[in-house]
């Protein structure tokens, strides 16, 4: 009965989305008439109840997984009664159907939230926005109910479940996909605002201010998702790399690039009423990229180290939705773009000018990543099979990324509208001098590739430049949003430093060692003390016991494992990581050679951890900016409430 309850709730939610779409659309179109007024009253409650129904449905699924109800097909095919409780619960969204239900639930919850609290925009625009939100939602309801029903029963129920892919039985990964989904869904809300604004011709700074927290929120989740995904691939896949330019990684990077551009252009629109059409266009692109991302991941159309399911039918469904949404939005944009009036003008030497360069560069990088990701599909049509990797993405992306960083260093110093170079000469000269100094220093001391070289020099220069906007200002009165910008920009520098340092200076040793042998890598000495079998709740493993010391210092222990899971059967490599302030030692154990020696692979990776610290700093910057924006809005509402109250008192 419980599973049926979840399904019924989902159907009801879908019906309410239909109501929300119709009522919202009609009310926005014929604003003013008596029927329209009546319909308009239905829209916000429909969105709120829909959200509650979806949440109930999702909680039902979690319950089914928690009690391992094997009469439900999804539970039987992807869970197992022996699994630890946390993975049983995480298993609810660890596969396709559950993750799509999560997607729909988050989307409905966001729709409910804006219906409940958002009152800044003209009501007609809000109605159109909620109708658009329901339109996007309906596609996903159809997808769930017709092609991916998570509550399908199995008769007879099997005695035991098939288990969850062991690669996914990892606490980080349990929360990784939801994080990305929150990001994708946030962009869908931004998209709904864009459609609402276009339909009712309200592309205004107020629209940008209302949309901005959603873009910011989506961007924070995407940043965390990408950072966590990179770290997961780093320690779980056992190859020592942190970015593979894998299609699934690109699927999360592309919406992030678009969201980053949108975030910056929305700021221009909110502060200066410029870049109107451009912001609207980016809103469409950002949501399109999250749909493309979902399509690439869910259809399994591309080869990927992360691709866990291949299903052409679902791929076609998402492709149809993608075409419908993007095509529809582009047609709407084409019809309405000329009615979006020209915004305020600005000189190229201004904050807006710098942000335009940022936007164009980000869009170019987005295009390069998109083409590289889709190229294997295009050549497949001509029966030529290729794969595209770092030799393409790194240099071609850098052509736009490195100049963009130079602009990032200067842009925040410029004033809005019009500025002169003479005013910011000194700080720019300082940053330029630092850049050249680091470049010369590294060139003199080490022989490294051109990209890591430029990366190192730029990262140090940008790190200094990121704090320059705070100079001469009272730190206590500095708005939270500015703190956010400074920290996020500093995070970019920190992450870049980690990437460049690891690429330039990492050292690798690959050996076959007997027990008792000592292996040296970088300043580390590693001794293999023993290799023993160990076991866990649903796996057995070969574990190496090693003692390691850095530069003759205190001994530390490392225990890398080669694990074998039995339900379903699979092998994984559990690497051992020894972290120091200046980097990480990465140890993996491989197979045993015929003569009894064990394969060991050790990497010393200087400052590699900065990559993820940088990612977290970027996200933290976003969080600060978001808190700052929301706090301002709350203060404004409180003030407006007080004024209204005073007026009411005066009137009485």
């Amino acid at each position, binding site marked *: 009965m419980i599973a049926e309850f979840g399904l019924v709730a989902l159907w009801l939610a879908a019906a309410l989305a239909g109501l929300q779409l119709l009522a919202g659309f009609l009310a926005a179109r014929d604003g003013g008439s008596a029927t329209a007024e009546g319909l308009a009253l239905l829209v916000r409650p429909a969105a709120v109840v829909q959200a509650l129904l979806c949440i109930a449905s999702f909680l039902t699924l979690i319950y089914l997984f928690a009690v391992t109800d094997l009469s439900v097909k999804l539970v039987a095919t992807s869970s197992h009664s022996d699994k630890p409780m946390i993975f049983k619960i995480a298993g609810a969204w660890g596969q396709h159907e559950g993750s799509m239900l999560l997607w729909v639930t988050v989307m409905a919850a966001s729709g409910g939230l804006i219906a409940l609290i958002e009152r800044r925009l003209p009501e007609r625009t809000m109605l159109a926005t909620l109708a658009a939100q329901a339109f996007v939602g309906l596609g996903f309801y159809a997808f769930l109910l017709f092609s991916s029903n998570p509550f399908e029963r199995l008769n007879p129920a099997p005695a035991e479940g098939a288990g969850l*892919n062991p*690669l996914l039985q990892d606490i980080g990964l349990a929360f990784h996909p939801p994080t990305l989904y929150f990001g994708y869904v946030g962009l869908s809300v931004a998209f709904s605002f864009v459609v609402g604004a276009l339909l009712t011709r309200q592309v205004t700074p107020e629209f940008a201010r209302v949309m901005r927290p959603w873009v910011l929120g989506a961007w924070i989740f995407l940043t965390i998702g990408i950072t966590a995904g990179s770290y997961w691939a780093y320690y779980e896949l*056992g*190859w020592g790399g942190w970015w593979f330019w894998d299609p699934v990684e690109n699927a999360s990077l592309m919406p992030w690039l678009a969201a980053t551009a949108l975030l910056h252009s929305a700021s221009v629109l909110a502060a200066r009423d410029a870049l109107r*059409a*451009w912001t609207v266009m980016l809103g469409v692109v950002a949501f399109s990229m999250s749909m493309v991302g979902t399509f690439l991941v869910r259809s399994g159309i*591309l*080869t990927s*180290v992360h691709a*866990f*399911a*291949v299903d052409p039918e679902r791929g076609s469904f998402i492709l149809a939705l993608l075409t419908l949404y993007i095509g529809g939005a582009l047609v709407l944009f084409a019809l309405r773009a000329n009615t979006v009036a*020209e915004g305020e*003008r*600005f*000189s190229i030497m201004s904050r807006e000018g710098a942000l*335009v360069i940022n936007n*164009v*560069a980000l*869009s*170019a*990088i987005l*295009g*390069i990543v998109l*083409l*590289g990701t889709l*190229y*294997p599909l295009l*050549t497949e049509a001509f029966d*030529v*099979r*290729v*794969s*595209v*990797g770092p*030799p*393409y993405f790194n*240099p*071609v992306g850098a052509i*736009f990324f490195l100049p963009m960083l130079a602009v990032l260093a200067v842009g925040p110093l410029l004033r809005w509208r*019009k500025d002169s170079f003479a005013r910011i000469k000194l700080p720019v000269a300082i940053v330029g001098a630092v850049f050249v100094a680091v470049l010369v220093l590294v060139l003199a001391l080490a022989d490294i590739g051109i990209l890591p070289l430029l990366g190192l020099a730029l990262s140090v220069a940008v790190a200094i430049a990121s704090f320059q906007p705070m100079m001469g200002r009272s730190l206590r009165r500095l708005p939270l949003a500015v703190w956010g910008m400074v920290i996020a920009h500093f995070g970019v520098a920190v992450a870049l430093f980690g990437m460049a340092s690891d690429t330039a200076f990492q050292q690798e040793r*690959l*050996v*076959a060692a007997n027990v008792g042998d000592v292996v040296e890598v970088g300043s580390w000495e590693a001794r293999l003390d023993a290799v023993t079998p160990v076991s866990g709740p649903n796996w057995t493993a070969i574990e190496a016991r090693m003692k390691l010391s850095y530069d003759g210092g205190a001994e530390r222990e490392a225990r890398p494992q*080669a694990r*074998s899971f039995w339900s*379903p*059967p*699979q*092998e994984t*490599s559990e690497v051992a990581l020894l972290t120091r302030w200046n980097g990480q030692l990465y140890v*993996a154990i*491989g*197979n045993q*050679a*015929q*003569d009894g*020696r064990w*394969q060991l*692979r050790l990497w010393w990776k200087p400052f590699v951890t900065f990559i993820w610290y940088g990612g977290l700093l970027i996200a933290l910057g976003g969080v600060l900016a978001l808190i700052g924006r929301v706090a301002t809005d709350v203060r404004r509402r409180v003030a407006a409430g007080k004024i209204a109250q005073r007026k009411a008192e005066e009137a009485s």
Partner: protein
Amino acid sequence: MNTTIKPKHQRLVLLVVAVIAMIGATLLAIVALRDQASYFYLPSEIGAAETGRDIRLGGMVEHGSIVTQEDGITIHFIVGDGEARQPVSFTGIAPALFVEGSGVVAEGSMAADGTFMASNLLAKHDENYMPRELAELDTDEVRAQIEATLQ
């Protein structure tokens, strides 16, 4: 003359800058893709591959062909597709499910002596994951052929 451009012109200038940048990026991407994409070959086609260029080789690991070298970390083996047999050398930790008789995709390049120097091996590492090229091989009759030749 005023330094700020007229509104109508400014929008046009922005549009032109954006379009030029996007076209530039696209052209750059296309040229680089033609140079840098790594092509996939079966052992019977690999004669056409340029020496030293990054490519991928896919096929079945021949029974009894995996030989571990003195250093304990280099293996030599033969990949076949039923028509041709290609010697491969790989230094590193092979994936656990890399076994004789199973499918593999090797990333690397051809050496002058005709050996394929693999830098990475992608084996089928669970029930659901398989390199796309091999998934196709399976559906092909090639696989049946291979098994017939290998036994």
